[in-house]
């Protein structure tokens, strides 16, 4: 039987073969990864370094002819002493905490229930994951209608259950409901993602561990806490990491639902940053703002990944 590798080698044109023949393995490896490294440097690292540089200036991208002044730490000081920005950070933290909390709680519960064998399991799984397949723009518009006080389903249901007139309150308006409304929409959309990761974790637990526990007469409750939870935990933590990073930069859905309002009640840091950078065109200032957010996410994520690795090692 002819050797296929030898056939390919024979088919390689001579000049290339001759050139490659003279290279070491390390050189060939570099040859392969060089385009990727170049792209990474050009698209990620260079802009990052450039942003750091801009953050120390008063540069405005809409005034290219104006002289750019070096302002030292002024942008950072202004941002870190701005009460409005701290309020936006708090709003972001509120959104982040509660979306993660509900998505983990509901996502894990759904995964645990779906993991059992029953008729229609596949169909139900497909239905549950549908929201995460939708575009955030569609979800934003769709929920705006659901939250509409006069024709929206949400207010109608609240009226049906509590007797509160549907048109007497607005889920996206004043009254303190808006921050919770965006949490509900994000939870509806992304809980299936957490559920799928948890499901992968649950299905990776070998049956023999549960069988051994049964033989040892461990109760279902004990099996849950000593087998299921520890073995799913790395998966769950991974899901939290993904969703945490995503929600820290949440923008589109909230803009469509509330535009950051009422007032500043749902003004997340990412929305504020966009306004500073591309509406007010304070490029230097917004670069500093972006660096602060980047360091925050990067720092938190690094600590979290270390914790995740420790959990996996156990």
């Amino acid at each position, binding site marked *: 039987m002819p050797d296929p590798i030898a056939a390919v080698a024979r088919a390689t044109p001579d000049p290339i073969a001759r050139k490659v023949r003279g290279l070491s393995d390390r050189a060939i490896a570099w040859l392969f990864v060089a385009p990727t490294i170049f792209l990474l440097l050009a698209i990620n690292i260079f802009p990052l370094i450039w942003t750091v540089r801009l953050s120390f200036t008063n540069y405005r991208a809409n005034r290219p002819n104006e002289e750019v002044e070096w302002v030292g730490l002024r942008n950072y000081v202004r941002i870190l002493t701005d009460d409005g920005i701290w309020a936006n950070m708090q709003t972001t933290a509120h959104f982040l905490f509660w979306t993660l909390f509900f998505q983990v709680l509901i996502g894990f519960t759904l995964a645990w229930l779906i993991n059992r064998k029953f008729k229609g399991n596949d169909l139900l799984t497909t239905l549950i994951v549908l929201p995460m397949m939708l575009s955030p723009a569609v979800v934003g518009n769709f929920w705006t209608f659901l939250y509409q006080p*006069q024709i929206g389903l949400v207010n109608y249901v609240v009226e049906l259950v509590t007797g509160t007139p549907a048109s007497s309150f607005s889920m996206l308006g004043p009254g303190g409901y808006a921050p919770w409304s965006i949490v509900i929409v994000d939870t509806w959309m992304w809980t299936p993602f957490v559920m799928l990761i948890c499901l992968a974790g649950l299905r990776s637990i070998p049956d023999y561990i549960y069988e051994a526990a049964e033989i040892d007469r461990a109760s279902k409750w004990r099996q849950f806490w000593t087998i299921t939870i520890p073995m799913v935990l790395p998966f769950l933590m991974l899901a939290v990491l993904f969703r945490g990073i995503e929600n820290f930069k949440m923008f589109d859905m909230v803009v469509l639902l509330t535009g950051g309002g009422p007032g500043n009640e749902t003004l997340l840091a990412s929305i504020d940053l966009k306004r500073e950078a*591309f509406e007010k065109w304070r490029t230097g200032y917004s670069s500093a703002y972006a660096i602060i957010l980047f360091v925050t996410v990067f720092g938190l994520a690094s600590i979290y990944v270390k914790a995740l690795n420790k959990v996996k090692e156990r």
Partner: protein
Amino acid sequence: MKARLLAATSAAALCFAGGASAQSNELTLCWAAWDPANALVELSKDFEAQSGIKMNFEFVPWPNFADRMLNELNSGGQLCDLLIGDSQWIGGSAENGHYVKLNDFFDKEGISMDDFAPATVYAYSTWPKGTPNYYALPAMGDANGWFYRKDWFARPEIQAEFKEKYGRDLAEPKTQKELLEIAQFFQGREIDGQTVYGASIFTERGSEGITMGATGALYAWGFKYENTPGSYDMEGAVNSPAAVEGLEFYKELYKTATPPGYDNAYMEQSLDAFKSGQVAMAMNWFAFFPGLYADPNTGGDKIDFFVNPAQNQPASTLGGQGISVVSYTDNMDGALAYIKWFAQPDVQKKWWSMGGYSCHRAVLEDPEFVNSAPFAGDFLEAMGAVQDFWQEPAYASLLLAMQERLHNYVVADQGTAQEALDGLIADWTEVFEDEGKL
């Protein structure tokens, strides 16, 4: 082989030359996507026929219009040869070199700014404000006005009930306070088996909505940006007792006389509320009035229009735009030819007849103008008392600060009107300090 290469190169060169020629014989005009833009497409067919230049149009929905177009200008993009940009952009676009200064061109072609309504020349064309430095030709006059359900107002039982309650006939309001009373009168009323509401007003948070709506009340009460124009001296002007009262009024109008959930509404929502028969009155830009009048369900004899009511003084919030030549165009001659064509009185008359709001005095001062549409007289009256937002290069920062302060107070119930306007002065002072103007 060489012959084939030569032929291929020649063919490619010819194609390229053809492409370049076609490109220079085309113009792209950028504007917002709304009714007047469709009228301009029709009007521009005359220009195409006369000049042989093909017109392309790039229309962007209002909520994204500023973002999209300012990005285009700031990046030196060549998408637009001509831009009908908002009046507030003129300062930044002039100072940053995005718009071509048109003085020499106007002089050469005999286009006189005296032929256009002074308020529109001041607002849409000049920078620095009021100086004879022109960066646009007034293209689309506009102001924030009102329209109402004339058929509801005319019902005898409603008339009688209103008279009993307020001691006067139910008619178009002459003051802001009358407007509030009428709106409150209709709020929650049953008409034809449907619950209706008083008025749809602007409360939008994201772009410019609540500022454009609330200034209608603020200007009427006496709000001013500066004590002396050009001084940036805002204390006592922005937060004057009259301004505070005007802002409190707008909040009361929002709280007591608008449909439920009306907390993030701008042009589109106002039109929807009116056309769906939810509200008795609505505010919106005059640009929409021809379309509203033509609406088969709520237009015709069911609708009428009125200018923004005065309170301490007559005043309307300015809308509208001038048409500018973008500096980065690769068809400067074509763009200027369009401006020259558009400035002609005959073209301006046709522009008005098709639904565009001409600013040309030959149109506005025609004795027949007032009777040419049911809202024409109101438009003239409004344009005689318009006030505009800051037109500074930093207008976006100034606008976002006002959006935040107003929405926080009016919609989100935070603080008092006095605190909102005091805070606004602090925000604007910071912006002007950054700009080196204070």
